[in-house]
């Protein structure tokens, strides 16, 4: 089928057709962001682009405050998770014991806990400790939610560093810290980076705790966009502009790291 010219063209048409259809809502969103509110209610392809909606998003709704929250929470949650995960993954990769396997599997299983099942106690705990509607509170929750995946991904990347290069390091006289600094981290840096990226993406897009545990001060972009569900007046332009800004960075991150994401997303069950 794919060896005839007709077949090749057919495949390309199909492949591109579906891609266009899937991408279309995003494309339309970006497009609409460049329309004014009046233009936005008109679903047309051709118009005079303007930045008025973008201006509105910041002036009327203070977009940057929410964006800042998203950044702080995502980066904070990721860094905290890496802080705990790197030593744990290091130990599990290089000093495995008969308990390592079970520990790893148990960690992964905690990620399968449905958030809604513990909504009540978490909400009450946050309230009583004053962490409700704070960035710190969300950072802690996100760290706990992503720790299993981060440990898991780092574990697999550490294991990929060829054993004999580490042994050569030991023959050369490298102690534990030397090994980490000079050999392990430089070689596993791409893996650490994509793990961090995945964690960033998961934190940024998380839309359960961010909606229920924040209201005004710590609300990230997910909540900001959610506020458009009960809008006043024309809002398509602002919604599109805000959405484009919220989505663009993550889209790029995701495109860059799609290969490595599979490993983290399936807990390695698919190679």
């Amino acid at each position, binding site marked *: 089928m794919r060896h005839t010219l007709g077949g090749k063209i057919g495949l390309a048409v199909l*492949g591109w057709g*579906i*891609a266009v259809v*899937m*991408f279309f809502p*995003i494309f339309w*969103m970006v497009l609409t962001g460049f329309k004014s509110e009046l233009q*936005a209610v008109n*679903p047309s392809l051709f118009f005079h682009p303007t930045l008025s909606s973008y201006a509105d998003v910041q002036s009327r709704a203070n977009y940057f405050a929410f964006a800042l929250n998203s950044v702080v929470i995502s980066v904070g949650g990721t860094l905290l998770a890496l802080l*705990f*995960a790197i*030593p*744990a993954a*290091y*130990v599990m990769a*290089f*000093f*495995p014991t*008969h308990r*390592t396997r079970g520990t*790893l*599997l148990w*960690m992964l*299983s*905690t990620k*399968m*806990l*449905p958030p*809604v*099942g*513990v*909504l*009540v106690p978490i909400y009450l*705990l946050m309230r009583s400790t004053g962490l409700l509607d704070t960035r710190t509170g969300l950072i802690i929750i996100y760290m*706990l939610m992503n*720790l299993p995946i981060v440990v898991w991904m780092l574990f697999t990347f550490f294991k990929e560093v060829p054993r004999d290069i580490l042994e050569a390091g030991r023959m050369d006289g490298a102690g534990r810290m030397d090994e980490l600094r000079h050999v392990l981290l430089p070689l596993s840096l791409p893996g650490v980076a994509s793990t961090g990226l995945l964690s960033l993406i998961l934190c*940024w*897009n998380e839309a*359960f705790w961010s*909606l*229920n545990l924040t209201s005004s001060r710590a609300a990230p*972009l*997910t909540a900001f*966009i959610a506020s*458009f569900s009960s809008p006043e007046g024309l*809002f398509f332009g602002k*919604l599109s502009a805000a959405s484009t800004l919220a989505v663009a960075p*993550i889209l790029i*991150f*995701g*495109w860059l790291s*799609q290969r490595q*994401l*599979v490993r983290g*997303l*399936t*807990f*390695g*069950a*698919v190679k």
Partner: protein
Amino acid sequence: MLQAVQASGPASSSKSRRGGRSGMTMPLIAPSVVILLIWSIVPLVMTLWFSFRHYNLVDPTQTGFAGFDNYVYLLTDPDFWASLINTLILVGGVLLVTVCAGTLLAVLYDTEFFGRSIARLLVIAPFFVMPTVSALIWKNLMLHPIYGVLSALFRDVGLSPIDWFSRAPLLTIVGIVSWEWLPFAILILLTAVQSLDHEQREAARMDGAGPVASFFYITLPHLRRAIGVVIMIETIFLLTIFAEIDVTTAGGPGVATTNLAFLIYARALLQFDVGGGSAGGVIAIILANIVAFFLVRSIARNLEV
């Protein structure tokens, strides 16, 4: 979930690489293990505890041990069963679409065609869009009966536009969530398809297998495992879809789009019925546990320490 972990696979043969220098290792793993332990046990126990108590945040008069009252109340509530059915429809519908389309599209995007890598990027994109954005873009820009793109297209061909969220709210949500998760299925299944070694496919061609036969006898069996993983992971996350419902229909009309997660949220945070919300939470946890058991077993088979 601890049982699943213990039941999964034999103990690994400990060919300890450097010979137990366990003195240094404990303090490095301990923090992660300890906080995850706290995270997985404390809220769980609390949910369980609350589910057996009368506890309403707004009405302080309701206190005390409730026995199974909350559960009985929940199980005799028609809304609860409706939410369970809705959850089933939601999960089942999205699984059906994403797995079927995902398999076919994975095969499609594995074959060479002009500009394939860019087309792939476009197809994958929806997965990285946050749920609130997805839902609102679809509701307002695409599906809006007056201002939406789809309605404009309908009008252009002479049909009258449909108000999707009124006519078929749950199915509309299934559609939106499918759009969000199809890329995930494609990504995973594409990775699995690419691991099918070319020589096997060529051997099949030498044996006279056309593309369809090749798909059913070679590709599909190879994908069986990956499809299983996709189903299990999607199920775990789809059981508790929340944001898309919250920003589009808020569970309505009536309880037409209320799934278990939204019901619990509504009970706990809107009606402030902590006891009832907790009971629902326990049920959600049990359901998730069942799927998690199988998923952990599947991962365990692949895991080499």
